[in-house]
């Protein structure tokens, strides 16, 4: 349970400073080992054969020629996998197609061979007979009753009669009376907004190295956001007991939610099992884009009712998200988070989860929220400017605060939304002059943040240095934060502690690194583990001094006698206690296992200036400032890094990134040439302002910050471009052709 005796008012010695990260030297010298950097003796190369069709029944797979090719050691198809539990059925089907290939790039077979060249030849020898079916890739088309159907019988009870089977679920949130609210409004802004599917864009393709013995015991080395999730999912798919599979997390080359699921791992293990040799699988960039987990493309209707003085009388949104070929788009979280920054009397959101012939959507940083914020914040901005009101003032007037009933239900505790808006108003950026063809946009954003299962083990070595083992892969510098929190709690210097990411054999179950949970939940467990170690060290000191345990307390890195009858003993430092550990009972450690709940939400306001080239429609980002509440910034540089990284992913999403499917349902831009993420020369510096409104649920007041930073940019940039262009942009990406069409007055682009 989260500790309630808040320590937020204390003076921090280590937390809040900017030490060098412990894994820095390996990463700048090239020694750090990522997914594709591991090799094993006798290792084979695994490759996957992927469907060239967007939708097709798999009539027959003939692997005989491939198996006959010299150098081929194993071939796997869905027939090699048995029945699996219901909660991993879709995961298996996505890793290896069953009776149907559901999207361009869907895996249908795999080989393991003695060399990459042999593996490539073997794939060409596998004969697959497809019965090509009609396909659908657009979310609004997939809903129509006559649309090609992907699944039978997956529609949930929440969906009214008469809609396509592709409509999986409907959900509705909010409170009050929308119709009444709309009537009170002096003006209603009503528009439809559309966003294209985007990919997390991590630079490291998926990779793993699997080994399985005939005794059924297996090892897996993999780049992932959660190696415990990989263990449990792979064990379920392969019908193994979890304890038989040990998964080691490599360094991870970016994830952003896209590596919170499995793609290659069950197939690599099956190949390794059949071949009796280790199998390494590394995806190509084109495989990553065609067949991993981009986020949803969306179609969203919004209505905002506003009075002349800027009060929002009604907020309505209907959100349609396609989550790829399987149920489970993040529409609910979009529907719940869209109006979360606001204190509304009448708010209603309706979410539709739809399937289409596209890769199965995985989480992408605050999944579902950026698209909802794009639509809702754009409509609020348009309504405010329609009355000539200041967009920051209107957001402040309607902003949520402590005691506000959130649009998704609960009443807020202390939150930082208004603080970010006030900080934005007083920042020089807000009052800086704008030139010709330039526009300034603002938008707010929110994310829930999570806790989840967490285990940390802290050990005192004989010479008094400290090792911390945690189970959450470190993407953005969390090993530094854990080292800082352990050092802070133990009262010793930062460089006396080393944090590592332990494999699944060394700790209990850990939730994936996602939901901006790591600094919150793993930090909490690290602090509790350090406290447990302090308690034991105080007990050892008490033994030596021959006094009662209760009469010893820990202060500034040493055990000290405390209380009236404790006696006068010089303090015993951590190093002194460690040196006599084996004399006083044995090695000293502290560990903590918890399902950390009660993570604090995090709000942000983003502000951006753009300049349009009216002849070509291209948009240049001139200035960008992020204002976000971090509760307590443990390592400010890495908090700033989360703000900057989220903002720039938002810039790519707003201006250039999109999944482009042809009429044939085939992905046309499966590479970094035409899937255009921002490059260094596209951008200005990204200025950041960290606000600290403590989260009562964490000993140091920490809130997760990793995800909120991607929520506001889509809307902030759309608001800026719309102002500069003088026409409301309602479709992402705001590519030059679209902006040019808008400038040429061809309706709102």
């Amino acid at each position, binding site marked *: 349970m989260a500790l309630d005796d808040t320590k937020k008012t204390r003076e921090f010695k280590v937390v809040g400073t900017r030490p060098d990260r412990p894994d820095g030297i390996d990463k700048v*010298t090239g020694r750090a080992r990522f997914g594709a950097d591991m090799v094993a003796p006798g290792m084979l190369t695994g490759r996957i054969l992927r469907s060239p069709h967007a939708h097709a029944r798999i009539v027959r797979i003939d692997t005989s020629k491939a198996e006959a090719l010299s150098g081929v050691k194993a071939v796997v198809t869905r027939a090699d996998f048995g029945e699996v539990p219901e909660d991993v059925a879709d995961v298996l089907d996505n890793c290896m197609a069953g009776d149907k290939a559901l999207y361009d790039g869907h895996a249908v077979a795999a080989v393991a061979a003695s060399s990459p060249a042999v593996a490539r030849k073997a794939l060409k020898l596998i004969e697959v007979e497809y019965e090509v079916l009609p396909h659908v890739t657009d979310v609004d088309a997939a809903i129509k009753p006559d649309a090609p159907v992907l699944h039978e019988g997956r529609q949930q009870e929440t969906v009214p009669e008469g809609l396509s089977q592709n409509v999986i679920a409907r959900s509705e949130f909010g409170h009050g009376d929308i119709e009444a609210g709309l009537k009170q409004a002096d003006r209603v802004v009503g528009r439809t907004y559309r966003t294209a599917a985007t990919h997390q864009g991590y630079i490291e393709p998926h990779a793993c190295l699997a080994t399985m013995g005939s005794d059924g015991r297996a090892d897996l080395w993999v780049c992932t956001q959660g190696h415990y999730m990989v263990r449990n999912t792979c064990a379920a798919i392969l019908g193994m007991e979890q304890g038989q599979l040990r998964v080691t997390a490599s360094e991870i080359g*970016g994830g952003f939610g896209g590596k919170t699921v499995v793609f290659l791992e069950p197939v690599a293990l099956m190949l390794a099992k059949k071949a009796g040799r280790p199998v390494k699988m590394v995806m*190509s960039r084109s495989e990553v884009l065609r067949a991993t987990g981009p986020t949803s493309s969306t179609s969203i209707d919004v209505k905002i009712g506003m009075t002349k003085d800027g009060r929002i009388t009604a907020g309505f949104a209907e959100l349609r998200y396609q989550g790829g070929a399987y149920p489970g788009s993040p529409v609910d979280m979009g529907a719940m988070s869209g109006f979360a920054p606001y204190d509304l009397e009448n708010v209603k959101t309706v979410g539709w989860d739809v399937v289409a012939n596209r890769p199965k959507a995985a989480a992408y940083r605050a999944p579902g929220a950026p698209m909802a914020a794009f639509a809702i914040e754009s409509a609020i901005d348009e309504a405010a400017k329609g009355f000539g009101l200041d967009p920051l003032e209107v957001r402040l007037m309607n902003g949520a605060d402590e005691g506000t009933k959130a649009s998704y239900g609960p009443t807020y505790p202390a939150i930082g939304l208004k603080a970010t808006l006030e900080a934005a108003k007083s920042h020089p950026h807000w009052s800086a002059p704008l030139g010709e063809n330039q526009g300034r946009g603002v938008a707010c954003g929110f994310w829930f943040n999570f806790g989840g299962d967490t285990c940390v083990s802290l050990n005192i070595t004989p010479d008094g240095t400290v090792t911390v083992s945690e189970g959450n892969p470190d993407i953005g510098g969390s090993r530094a934060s854990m080292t800082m929190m352990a050092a802070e709690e133990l009262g010793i210097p930062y460089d006396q502690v080393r944090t590592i990411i332990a494999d699944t054999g060394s700790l209990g179950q850990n939730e994936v690194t996602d939901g901006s949970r790591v600094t919150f939940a793993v930090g909490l467990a690290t602090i509790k583990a350090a406290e447990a170690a302090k308690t034991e060290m105080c007990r050892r000191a008490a033994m030596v001094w021959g006094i009662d345990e209760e009469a010893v307390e820990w202060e500034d890195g040493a055990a000290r006698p405390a209380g009236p009858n404790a006696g006068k003993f010089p303090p015993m430092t951590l190093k002194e206690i460690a040196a006599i550990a084996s004399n006083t009972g044995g090695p000293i450690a502290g560990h903590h296992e918890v399902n950390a709940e009660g993570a604090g939400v995090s709000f942000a306001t983003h502000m951006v200036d753009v300049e349009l080239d009216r002849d070509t429609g291209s948009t240049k980002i001139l200035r960008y400032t992020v204002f976000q509440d971090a509760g307590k910034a443990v390592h400010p540089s890495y908090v700033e890094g989360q703000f900057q990284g989220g903002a720039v992913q938002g810039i790519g999403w707003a201006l250039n990134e999109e999944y482009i499917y042809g009429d044939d349902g085939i992905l046309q831009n499966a590479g*970094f040439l035409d899937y255009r993420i*921002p*490059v260094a*020369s596209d951008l200005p510096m990204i200025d950041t302002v960290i606000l600290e409104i403590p989260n009562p649920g964490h000993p140091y007041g920490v809130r997760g910050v990793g995800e909120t930073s991607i929520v506001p940019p889509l809307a902030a940039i759309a608001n800026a471009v719309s102002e500069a262009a003088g026409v409301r942009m309602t479709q992402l990406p705001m590519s030059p052709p679209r902006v040019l069409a808008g400038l040429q007055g061809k309706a709102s682009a």
Partner: protein
Amino acid sequence: MSQLHVTTKINGDETEFLCEAEDTLLDVLRDRLGLTGTKEGCGTGDCGACSVAVDGRLVCSCLMLGAEAEGRDIATIEGMATGDQLHPLQQKFIEMAALQCGICTPGILVAAQSLLERNPDPSEEEVRYWLAGNLCRCTGYDKIIRAVMETAADMRRAS
């Protein structure tokens, strides 16, 4: 199919290897010579994670055949530090948190070193355009650009 025998110099060391004609220099560095510091992010010259210097010229090692290395002088990330003495860029990147996941860092460091060899006093824009071929998805580039420019300033002061 006979393999090619190639003699070259990597990070100052005479090096020989065998490779297939279609192996790229990146394949050779990683799979035959165990120098896994150079990374593959795309295999098509669009991400820069495989950047190396060949005879002092910054190139993508995924778009060069291993066979072309014959007689060349190749510098990879593994050669950037001298012993335990980090290159000023490597040190500055750590100090300024100019990396998060680190997969793009080797390529960016090699590219930035190549820039500072040619231009000891680059403007922000010059740094940004020189590094435009090195994609980073975590940092938004801000701290990377600042780290390169501060290192340039330090090196100018030191020289």
